[in-house]
């Protein structure tokens, strides 16, 4: 029988907690994925059909490019992000905590808005071109820039956290044994942070390989990824079988990376270390230069596209902003709000159940990442195939939103639970609190900041959801994202200006939803500020 890390066998309540997310995952993810597999099998048992994506030069390039752009992005974010993380983890300077918070910004920006930002900055007629540079239209740089915009912060946050976990006494021991700072980093700090970096890089690879919105808008005909190809095959060419084969190939290629990520995450699930290395003020010109470069790099990569959208939207004139009051926009806003709110409620219930149950079964923790493995396009495609009668029905759309949003809540809560010393519950029990009372009076209040943080990311994800909406919604259920895409697809400067203004509105909405929930989470009792 399975035992928790507390040494007691699971109770009926634990099984009940596990059931809800498991049934949901089975119905909304695993069954649709199997249906995709069955659809692909319909092409016949001949090797030719299965190997078509490898034999057809066009499809082979799509698969190859998907992996290549994901790999290049991994290299770029590691190269840029590790020094930045070192600065943030080891040096104390004014605005450091603000920078750390700003690193969350790209998580909140909807994919389509990010794509618009990159276009506004470096696309045709973009700010870069206006200042005398060449447009990046038709090159792979647009997509790579978009990828780095989203993923640099993933690596910097993970590496900063990892560096903060390095044992101060071990580094001190290495130094007293004759290691230079660089040798101490290489022999003590690097082995300690390597699993964290690998975990973050796995996630970056998965995000880039399975990315849809960025690749659709920024990739163009030459550099679109396999996800865009699947969408095109389903939505425009109606080649469901071929799309199914391609989807299965995608799943096979991303599965090892996802498995590695799940294993690494499990290994990293340990209580926070107490003897952290203290941060110090920059002491040399080199260290001050490193701080300046970090701020500059974060500004260029993470802030510039967002600011470019605002600048271009403001520059479009008052007439362009009138789009905000058009009936279509108000209707899309209402749809965005109601679908997101419904999905958030469902995602919260699922996330809480999943995180609590994952404390009992390690396998459940790995399963929480399944929605990260299967891209939104594949989720929507599988749901469409499995539940054709429910296509364009609100419950299916909300379920798909919740599926993509709830891992954020489960992950945030699971991390908080891992970091919570087991003896808090022991202390409560020894003071007379029943398991339920101990949960209600100790564990639940301590989990609030993590819950709100997870919900904030889930809300931002739901508000900015694009791929699933494109597949599963009816025309009258247009959300702000699909409306932006619609404007972007129409010719003329007016429509482009409207897309820019709507992007500003969507960004404000996603940011507002995030702040509304994340703001009260700043004072985390599990990780109190020493200056509080």
């Amino acid at each position, binding site marked *: 029988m399975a035992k928790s890390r507390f*040494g*007691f066998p699971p109770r009926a309540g634990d099984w009940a907690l596990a059931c809800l997310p498991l049934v949901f995952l089975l119905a909304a993810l695993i069954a649709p994925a199997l249906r995709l597999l069955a659809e692909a099998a319909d092409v016949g048992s001949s090797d030719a059909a299965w190997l078509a994506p490898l034999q057809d030069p066009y499809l082979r390039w799509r698969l190859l490019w998907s992996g290549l752009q994901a790999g290049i992005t991994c290299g770029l974010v590691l190269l840029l992000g590790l020094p930045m993380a070192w600065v943030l983890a080891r040096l104390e300077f004014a605005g450091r905590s603000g920078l750390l918070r700003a690193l969350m910004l790209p998580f909140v920006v909807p994919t389509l808005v990010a794509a618009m930002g990159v276009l506004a900055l470096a696309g045709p007629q973009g700010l870069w071109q206006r200042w005398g540079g060449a447009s990046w239209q038709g090159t792979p740089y647009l997509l790579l820039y978009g990828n780095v915009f989203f993923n640099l912060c993933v690596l910097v946050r993970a590496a900063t956290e990892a560096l903060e976990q390095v044992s101060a006494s071990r580094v001190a021991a290495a130094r007293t044994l004759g290691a230079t700072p660089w040798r101490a980093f290489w022999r003590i700090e690097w082995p300690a942070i390597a699993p964290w970096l690998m975990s973050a890089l796995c996630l970056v690879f998965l995000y880039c390989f399975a990315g849809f919105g960025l690749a659709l808008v920024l990739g163009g005909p030459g550099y679109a990824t396999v996800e865009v190809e699947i969408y095109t095959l389903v939505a425009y060419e109606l080649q469901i079988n071929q799309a199914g084969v391609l989807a299965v190939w995608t799943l096979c290629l991303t599965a090892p990376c996802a498995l590695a990520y799940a294993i690494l995450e499990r290994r990293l699930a340990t209580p926070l270390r107490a003897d952290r290395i203290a941060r110090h003020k920059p002491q040399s010109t080199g260290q001050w230069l490193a701080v300046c470069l970090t701020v500059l790099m974060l500004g260029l990569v993470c802030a510039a596209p967002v600011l470019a959208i605002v600048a271009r939207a403001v520059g479009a004139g008052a007439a362009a902003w009138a789009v905000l009051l058009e009936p279509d926009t108000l209707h899309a806003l209402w749809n965005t709000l109601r679908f997101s709110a419904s999905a958030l409620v469902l995602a919260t219930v699922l996330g809480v159940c999943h995180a609590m149950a994952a404390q009992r079964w390690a396998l459940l923790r790995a399963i929480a990442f399944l929605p990260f493995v299967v891209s939104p396009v594949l989720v929507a495609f599988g749901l469409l195939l499995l539940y054709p009668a429910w296509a364009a029905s609100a419950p299916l759309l909300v379920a798909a939103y919740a599926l993509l949003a709830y891992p954020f809540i489960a992950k945030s809560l699971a991390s908080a639970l891992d970091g919570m*010393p087991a*003896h*808090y519950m*022991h*202390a*409560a*029990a*020894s*003071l*007379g*609190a*029943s*398991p339920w*009372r*101990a949960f209600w*009076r*100790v564990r639940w*209040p*301590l989990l609030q900041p993590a819950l709100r943080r997870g919900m904030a990311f889930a809300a931002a994800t739901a508000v900015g959801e694009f791929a699933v909406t494109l597949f599963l919604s009816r025309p009258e259920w247009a959300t702000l994202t699909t409306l932006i895409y619609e404007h972007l697809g129409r010719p003329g400067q007016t429509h482009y200006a409207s897309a820019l203004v709507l992007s500003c509105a969507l960004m404000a909405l996603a940011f507002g939803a995030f702040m509304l929930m994340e703001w009260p989470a700043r004072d985390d*009792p*599990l990780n*109190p500020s020493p200056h*509080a």
Partner: protein
Amino acid sequence: MLELRNIVKHWQAPGAAPRVLLDDLNLQVSSGETVAILGPSGGGKSTLLKIIAGLELADSGRVFCEGQDISALPAHLRRFALMFQDFALFPHLNVQDNVAFGLVEQGQSRSQARAQALAVLQRFGMADHAVGRVWQLSGGEQQRVALARALITRPRVLLLDEPFSALDAPLRASLRAEFAAHIASWPMAVVWVTHDEAEARAVGARGLELQAGVLQQRW
């Protein structure tokens, strides 16, 4: 008062063979008596306390309190109090609410519990910190709050797991006398686990050493 009969507990590190942590262990502690248990780190002292507190299950053996078999009784119903090495104060509650925690669990209203907690904090010289956050306290202050929290519920058995291991030597010596005085004022059985023999001799009328899973009389 407290009696352990034939307690056996095995422990298995991942990938290693299981080893006997507690081997047919027996112990009796009377009300008002303080027993000090010595032993090396990793020898099973903390596990023994957790088994007594009901936080961990023994592989075999029974735990009795006041003549009743409480082996299957959940931790929250035993009316024992356990003090942890790093205090285990709840960071989301202020000092007063930490101390009042157990009283609320016993069914007292929050206001009553808080008033009583304040009175106990006064006895411990900590009333000025009542509304402060626990992480703002020094190690010695946190230790006093932890003891106040443990004693306020009038436990039948008090279990202390290396209570001074996180403190420096001078503070340890002064707190030891203070703790002994507080504990003497409550009629309960006390099991005090430590690896410091001087501390054990100062607090324990009887000293036992846990070696190879068995308790041996030291004094």
